[in-house]
């Protein structure tokens, strides 16, 4: 309703947003490998993602017999693209690439694209384990998507707008996380789910020899692994914009606060998911729908009542 809340960047905006996404995602991967090294009693590990990327980019890509190359490539490259498209509507401080009036719905649509891409990557390889992995992701996705949608509803109802800039602006007095903690927790769980992080790693777990990733090598594997960290980073960014006040903070400029909060939240998520065991795919549906949905619906009800009372008074 107030298009002036954030300022759209000129033509170099998309490049800057992509670069920021890449740097934030790389920092997440580095933290992960530092933690992994420390866990096994070594020091360092921070450059392991770069070394791994260099190794994968030099590796020859392997393909399976009678693979559906088109679908496989769309799926493999799609995860990173979906993350980049999400970031396009994310206000970084006072700047945004595209100030879409329905930015929140756009985010949701891009996260549904992940359903398609993971399944296509699994299907297109014409191999049993990737196919099983693709279907496992759909099983998880059916369970987490509805709670995620309602978790997105809460900030939109409170702000009275689907525009990301308005949602951030509505948190000037009080961050949404303070009075919608359930929505925040459900949203973070869904972020872990759509970025294929534990406990939602069943589509690529060891019991199906890596599932969707089992036949991928070289640049294909690199793109999928990058896509997971990009989606996690984009999710952390949206958690900051939707619940943690976006770029608001004392002294430092908006964008720095925003990136700082995003990076800290991303690192926390990376550290947290290392400590959670993996769920079997059929274990998510009942908790997500029998417990998660009623709880998040109550949260939306509370938010709606508070918002309407606030407006009428």
């Amino acid at each position, binding site marked *: 309703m107030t298009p002036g809340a954030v300022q759209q960047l000129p033509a170099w905006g998309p490049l800057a947003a992509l670069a920021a996404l890449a740097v934030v995602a790389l920092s997440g991967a580095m933290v992960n490998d530092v933690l992994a090294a420390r866990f096994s009693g070594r020091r360092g590990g921070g450059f392991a993602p770069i070394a791994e990327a260099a190794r994968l980019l030099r590796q020859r890509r392997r393909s399976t*017999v009678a693979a559906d190359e088109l679908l496989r490539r769309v799926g493999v490259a799609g995860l990173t693209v979906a993350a980049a498209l999400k970031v396009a509507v994310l206000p970084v401080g006072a700047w945004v690439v595209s100030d879409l009036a329905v930015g929140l719905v756009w985010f949701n649509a891009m996260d*549904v694209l992940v359903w398609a891409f993971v399944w296509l990557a699994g299907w297109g390889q014409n191999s049993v384990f990737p196919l099983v992995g693709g279907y496992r992701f759909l099983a998880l996705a059916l369970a987490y998507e509805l709670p995620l949608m309602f978790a997105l509803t809460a900030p939109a109802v409170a702000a009275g707008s689907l525009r990301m800039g308005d949602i951030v602006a509505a948190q000037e007095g009080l961050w949404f996380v303070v009075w919608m903690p359930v929505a925040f927790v459900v949203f973070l769980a869904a972020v872990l789910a759509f970025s294929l992080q534990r406990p939602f790693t069943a589509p690529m777990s060891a019991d199906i020899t890596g599932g969707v990733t089992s036949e991928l090598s070289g640049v294909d594997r690199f793109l999928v692994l990058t896509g997971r960290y990009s989606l996690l980073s984009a999710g952390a960014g949206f958690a900051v914009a939707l619940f943690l006040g976006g770029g608001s903070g004392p002294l430092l400029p908006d964008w720095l606060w925003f990136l700082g909060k995003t990076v800290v939240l991303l690192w926390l998520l990376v550290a947290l998911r290392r400590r959670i065991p993996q769920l079997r795919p059929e274990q998510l549906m009942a908790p997500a729908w029998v417990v998660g949905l009623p709880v998040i619906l109550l949260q939306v009800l509370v938010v709606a009542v508070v918002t309407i009372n606030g407006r009428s008074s």
Partner: protein
Amino acid sequence: MPEAILFVVLAVIAVAAGVAVFRTDSMARASYALAVSFVAVGLMLLQFRLEYIGVITVLMMVMEMAVMAIFMIMFMGMNPALMPMDMVHSKKLSAGSAIGLFLLLTAGILLADWPESRGPAGGDLTASLGEAIMEPKMLVMLVISPVLFATLVSALVLANPRGRYSTYPLVPVEDADDDDGQGKGQDHSGDSAGHAAHSAHGMDHGAGNSDGHGQHHDGGGHQ
């Protein structure tokens, strides 16, 4: 002018992807060609400044195709869905009804007495859409949405043997049950003689897969 060009490009993509749905021999390609067609339509709606409807179209259609992939395994059994197959059947009836419907809709578009545009649409179109749905059309929405939701849930419950015959398993189900279910499924698809061609394809694919696996294990050593 650039907007018009973009519109034409999107329209061509939408139609071409729609044609591809029936030309391909793979269920996966057919369903995602349909998704591409709808995404192009969604982007055209964005051009009309109908942002909410456009983005929701993209969201719903992509999700629908993903769910279609689940249905295709649940209701068709594993084999036919995974094998190459013809995407058209009862050709004369389908072609006839498609052409008839197209003519009907075109005639409707051309002959309808459309209201004159009263200046540019003002304000927040998403908000006015919401008001239109929630105020005058509230009853319709209240009737439709539970019916749609009940359809979805009951389809899932019926397709899942555990959903039909027992409550949600709080203890892990024994393996014997699973084996039984799979055995039945295979018997069923093997029974129908019409699927003989499919089972031949199945053998091809089986061979393909095991080759792939050989490669995989070989490759594993290099990593």
